[in-house]
């Protein structure tokens, strides 16, 4: 039995069918084609599939697609303004925080959600915002630096 839902992703409205058991990450990737949402642990632990759902960052692997009916979603594909990268995106490139880059969309979305909430986050707030995102390449040092650089450029 499949059902049909309507939702908004990065300002665009989609109506599509899905199985009740389909995870949101699979629906976004396989049905709607948002491949920037990265699939990894399927247990809500690594943050690679982070999206913003009605203003809040969520791990889309532990949300059912059906629960996104009527929701307003932002994925990593919706963060740049046309060709102009968001300061967080640019800072990740400039500081070398993008190594393999697989965790990068999740970090960027988590940080975007934070910066939408508060313009001048404290170090503790930054750490809290990305404490659910795992990176195995950088050891986080370059990610700390990217956040600092983006904050400077935004203030």
């Amino acid at each position, binding site marked *: 039995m499949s059902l049909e839902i309507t939702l908004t992703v990065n300002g665009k409205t989609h109506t599509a069918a899905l199985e009740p058991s389909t995870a949101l990450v699979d629906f976004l990737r396989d049905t709607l084609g948002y*491949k920037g949402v*990265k699939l*990894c642990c399927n247990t809500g632990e690594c943050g690679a599939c982070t999206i913003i759902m009605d203003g809040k960052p969520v791990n889309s692997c532990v949300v059912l697609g059906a629960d996104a009916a009527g929701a307003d979603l932002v994925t990593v594909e919706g*963060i740049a303004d046309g060709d102009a990268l968001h300061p967080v995106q640019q800072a990740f*490139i400039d500081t*070398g925080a993008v190594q393999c*880059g*697989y965790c990068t969309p999740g970090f960027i979305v988590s940080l975007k959600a934070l910066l939408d909430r508060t313009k001048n986050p404290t170090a503790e707030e930054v*750490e809290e915002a990305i404490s659910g995102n795992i990176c*195995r390449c950088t050891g986080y040092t370059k990610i700390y630096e990217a956040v600092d650089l983006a904050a400077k450029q935004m203030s």
Partner: protein
Amino acid sequence: MAKAEHKVLGTNMPRMGGVERVVGKGIYGIDLNLPDALCGGVLRSAHAHAKIVSIDTSAAKAIPGVHAVVTAADAPDVRYGRSYIDRYILAKDKVRYTGDPVAAVAAENQALVKEALGKIKVTYEPLPVVVDTEEAIKESAPTLHEDMPLPKNLPEGFQVKNVCGYTGVNIGDAEAAMADADVVVDEVYETRMIHPQYLEPRVAAARPEEDGRITVWTNAQAPFPVRTEVASLTGQPLNSVRVLSTDIGGGFGGKGSGVTSSAGLEPICALLAMTAKRPVMIVMDKAEETISTTIRSGAKIWIKSGVKKDGTLVARQGKVLYDAGGYSGFGNQAGGRCTQMVGGWYRLPNIHMDGLTVYTNKQVCGPVRGPGGPQATFAMESHMDSIAAELGMDPIEFRLKNVPAKGDGIVGVPKLRDSSLPETLNTAKEKIGWGKVKLGKNQGIGFATGAWIEGSGPGGGAVVKVNEDGSATVHIGKVDFGTAARFGIPMIVAEELGIPTGDVTVLNVDTDASPWDAGTVGSRSMLVSGNAVKLAAEDAREQILRMAAATLEASPEDLEIVDKQIQVKGAPSRSVSMASVCTAAHNEIGDVIGRGYFDSKASQVHEREQGSSQPFTTHAALVEVDTDTGNVTVLKYVCVHDVGFVVHPRAVEGQIEGAAAMSLGQALCEQVVHDSEGRTLNPTFVDYLMPTINMLPPIETVLVSGYPGAGPYGTKGAGEIGSVPPMACIANAIYNATGVRVRRLPLSPENVLRALREAGK
């Protein structure tokens, strides 16, 4: 040697492919979109050790929408392996670890794959299980491989069972020197298995082509070895197999050097596609990966050293039991390296080491980030601190007394051209504030040094094609996952050709077109592809200058390329654009194709004759131990490294910091836990703890210079050495804070608290 001035090298250019990664383009293996592809899946053994009595696939094959069900019976009777050829792609007759692949299915969708896997009826006859290396070598232990002989080089006294590799180190007369020592320190250390846990799952896809060939897509680190093994294991001629690499979401050796040291996924996928006569794609589940793919093995290490009262090391003896898992995998290579590194990289005239690699009923050893090195160094550098404590010496002074100097030999290196080890020690001491910083209650500072010897290994080539607009396309056999291929390699081409880095495209590997290469392994991207690309770019530049010389009426030696203009040195107004020369080339040589290669054998001869410069490091940590809970907090962490000339500083720092973080994870919390029946108790990310940003402080990396290596411009490998010291470094800091030596990883609250309580603290 580095030139006096570089325009591009040594700067932090944006990595190639950076924008695609921050905006979420679908570039990885997992993002492959193969029209008409079936989903594939693998049935894995639920037993750690059992005979396969029978496999009945009829019910699975009968499900509508299931297009292929394969077992060992459907594959050629060919095994694979590195030094021991001991493994089938699908288990035949026996399974040897929980997660051993037994059968595979291709079906219309994932739900059908799951259903079909559930309907394959395997009848097992369970056998006794052995998960511990010390137990596995006992006569009473079950035999894992009845038809595998013991290693030919196994010495008298080590004729024990389940051994699949032996490495000996024999320098001087360790026994006599030990008897003469003033002080002898004898210890045993133990490390546990960790999983590399790259974030992108393993992916393989295969498509039978109309012309009878087969195309394989993979996110493996070594496409050419994958080609060799897919051909041999599916019974195809080599030239019928084409392997295409995708961008890769992390590997760390886990997506290792070919099928042998990874998941064996590509030949299984190819077999499914050939059987179904349809494209098939397999995406592994993360929990499936944790129990079945290759890992950083655990090791048990006995280490005994003799010293003079003044702190001079005179002898070392030791033994290593290195866990291969159910098959030899990379175990012999990693266990051998581990054994050598327990011998150390200090001036030590008498060493005797015996290293055995041992089969157990666990998943298979792979080449994860410095294979063998972190384990060896946990023991060796903890032991160095124990000796210093026994002598009442400062741990830095004790090490400085024994560091090798120019002209000395160390294990694996007959003669050093120079030695950066003292400078890294002194710099680490200063940066962490040893003797200066005021330590709080239960705070301590620890040090550990490290090395990652660059020795023998395969060579590799490069082709630099210059297009008619002056841009360059680069073919190498190395793949990218945030390493040199897309950071430093384009910069070398830009530097040598006088063009912007953004005009250089490094292609993914296509085994039909790319130069052969052993893969992105062994910290060798810069050494192999860097050297090859430099020569290829120089070759291309010579061709361009030769053609421009006629136009400019000058000799090629008097020309230079600056910002895509070829000009006469000292008379820049006499110039012609790269684009016009490369376009005109169509009427002469077609296009400009530069070729270069790294001749590994010649390089080894050169290094042996001239002495070699090796990468050395010292790490320093400031920690605080909660003596009520055993919890260890890392307050400050410094990595001082010599990696020779640095092409892209941030890329190198990132490699070092990431490697350090993985070993800090192993120091503090990471381990794959098995029960006595060989079942993995923590397969998912919920149970497998890894460092997150709030667990680690920002890591400070310091790069010392002046010790050029064998890479282009004097670079040295930087990818793995950062993983070598951290476990010992943290253990030494805990000792400094509490006076308690913990000799078994992880240094988790549970283990640290137990050690504190046993010491009466």
